């Protein structure tokens, strides 16, 4: 039988170490809604989302109180809208009406965010894909909960450089449209290489075409729990360090598995995956950078950071995999700058640069995430940074992403406030040299060779 120490350990994780279930995300296929009439399409999408997700908020609340585990976000991910809206939409403006519908539907069911205003263009763009991408600045500006993602590259297809070039311009447009609010709408837009079909985390969640009608995906979190566990093994060997991370990750993931199974049972929707991610928040003690410091670095960004992060990421996966029946999504440590107090401190101390962050993304999940850059950064420079990140994912056969925030009207030395869970970020300098001629080339970068791994 369970003993008092085990009960206290679990409750301490929740009360003092910020253990929580970061998100329950319902993936909903909208393929059945496809219609050539735009009005009918919007009506069907609204009905479909509000039917499937109608009990999401209530069920999450019940699970939260019965088990005493906070569930921070309730979210929805839908089929990439470029596929759903292609038959009905003849202009970017028409596409944006679907974003309005998603926003209304999410609000109606109490979902914090809804993802899937997306296009998958890793090899080429259809007319619909391009229209959707061009509609992103309109859509994000006038909706609250809609998140957008674009898959620009994959290991199998290479990098679609035409789309990379376009996204540099689109990102600046999004920034411009929300310049009176420190360009915050850029937070709701992310570009990917090798985007997973079952990611529960925003802004990149969408319900892939390989998925069933509806599915429950859960993202757990617990950087604070790992940090506290590591405080007890200071100075010990790598063996002890790794074992401690694995055991902690196991425990954290088990909570996610329980919540996912219960949510699936109560909502009558199949369980998809657990995303084994360490997702930080700006709350003190909820930081991935603090774990790196606990492992032995003065600041994230110090020499050894990439190795420490690689170790952390791998042990989290090893511990988590056994704790869950199905693992998927992004699964790994997130290193967003603004959402992690330890990262913010590292930037302010001058310990970490964009280039070091880029190196870190080679060994952990996602990529250049929530990074504020000067508002006068050229579109081609943004495309260049995106291309670099896509190349890392493509060659290393992993998911990488970029969520950059060019803050219009601000420069290096300024700070930008995003509010709540999104935190704040000091604006980081971007390498000032030009890549115009590279970015202006047309076409795509071919897929890499899958042999001669050097």
């Amino acid at each position, binding site marked *: 039988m369970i003993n*008092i120490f085990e*009960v206290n350990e679990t409750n301490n994780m929740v009360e003092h170490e910020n253990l929580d279930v970061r998100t329950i995300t319902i993936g909903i296929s909208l393929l059945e809604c496809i219609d050539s009439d735009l009005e009918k399409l919007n009506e069907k999408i609204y009905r479909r989302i509000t039917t499937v997700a109608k009990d999401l908020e209530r069920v999450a609340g019940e699970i939260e109180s019965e*088990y005493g*585990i906070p569930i921070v976000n309730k979210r929805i991910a839908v089929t990439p809208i470029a596929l759903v809206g292609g038959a009905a939409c003849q202009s970017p403006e028409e596409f944006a009406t679907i974003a309005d519908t998603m926003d209304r539907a999410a609000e109606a069911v109490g979902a914090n965010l809804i993802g899937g205003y997306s296009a998958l263009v890793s090899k080429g763009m259809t007319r619909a894909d391009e229209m959707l991408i061009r509609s992103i600045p309109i859509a994000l500006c006038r909706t609250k909960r809609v998140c957008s993602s674009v898959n620009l590259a994959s290991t199998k297809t290479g990098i679609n450089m035409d789309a990379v070039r376009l996204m540099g311009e689109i990102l600046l447009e999004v920034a411009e449209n929300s310049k009176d609010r420190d360009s915050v709408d850029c937070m709701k837009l992310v570009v990917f290489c090798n985007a997973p079909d079952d990611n529960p985390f925003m802004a990149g969640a969408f319900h892939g075409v390989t998925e069933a009608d509806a599915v429950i995906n859960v993202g757990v979190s617990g950087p604070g729990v790992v940090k506290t566990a590591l405080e007890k093994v200071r100075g010990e060997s790598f063996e002890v360090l790794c074992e401690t991370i694995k055991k902690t990750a196991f425990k954290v993931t088990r*909570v996610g*598995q329980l919540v996912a199974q219960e949510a699936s049972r109560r909502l009558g929707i199949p369980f998809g995956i657990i995303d084994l991610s360490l997702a930080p928040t700006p709350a003190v003690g909820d930081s991935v950078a603090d774990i790196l410091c606990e492992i032995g670095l003065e600041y994230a960004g110090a020499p050894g950071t990439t190795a420490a992060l690689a170790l952390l990421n791998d042990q989290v996966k090893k511990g988590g995999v056994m704790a869950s029946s199905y693992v998927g999504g992004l699964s790994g440590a997130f290193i967003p700058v603004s959402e992690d107090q330890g990262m913010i401190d590292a930037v302010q101390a001058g310990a970490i640069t964009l280039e070091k962050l880029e190196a870190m993304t080679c060994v952990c999940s996602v990529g250049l995430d929530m990074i504020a850059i000067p508002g006068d950064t050229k579109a081609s420079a943004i495309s260049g940074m995106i291309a670099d990140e896509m190349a890392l994912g493509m060659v290393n056969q992993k998911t990488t992403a970029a969520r950059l925030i060019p803050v219009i009207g601000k420069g290096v030395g300024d700070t930008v406030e995003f509010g709540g869970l999104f935190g704040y970020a000091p604006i980081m300098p971007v390498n000032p040299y030009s890549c115009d001629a590279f970015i202006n080339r047309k076409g795509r970068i071919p897929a890499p060779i899958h042999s001669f791994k050097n």
Partner: protein
Amino acid sequence: MEQKSDKTIITVVGKDTVGIIAKVCTYLSEHNINVLDISQTIVSGYFNMMMIVDMNHAKISFLDCQKELEVLGGQIGVSIKCQKEEIFEKMHRI
């Protein structure tokens, strides 16, 4: 496989005072909730108790019981939490 039961863990944490266990147990017996196990320690002056209870025949719903115990805790000056056992079972047992 162990049969799925309706076991609940009640934890009471707070400043030690006379009659904490009595008051909680009285509440439980009034609502036909059976106590299966009790353990208790004092950690740095703080009273720390865990009860495993069976709510199969309880005359009250889980969520109501949770709320009422919280109120009761407020009256005694301790914090009372009520959680389904599964979360602990999942985390600490393979």
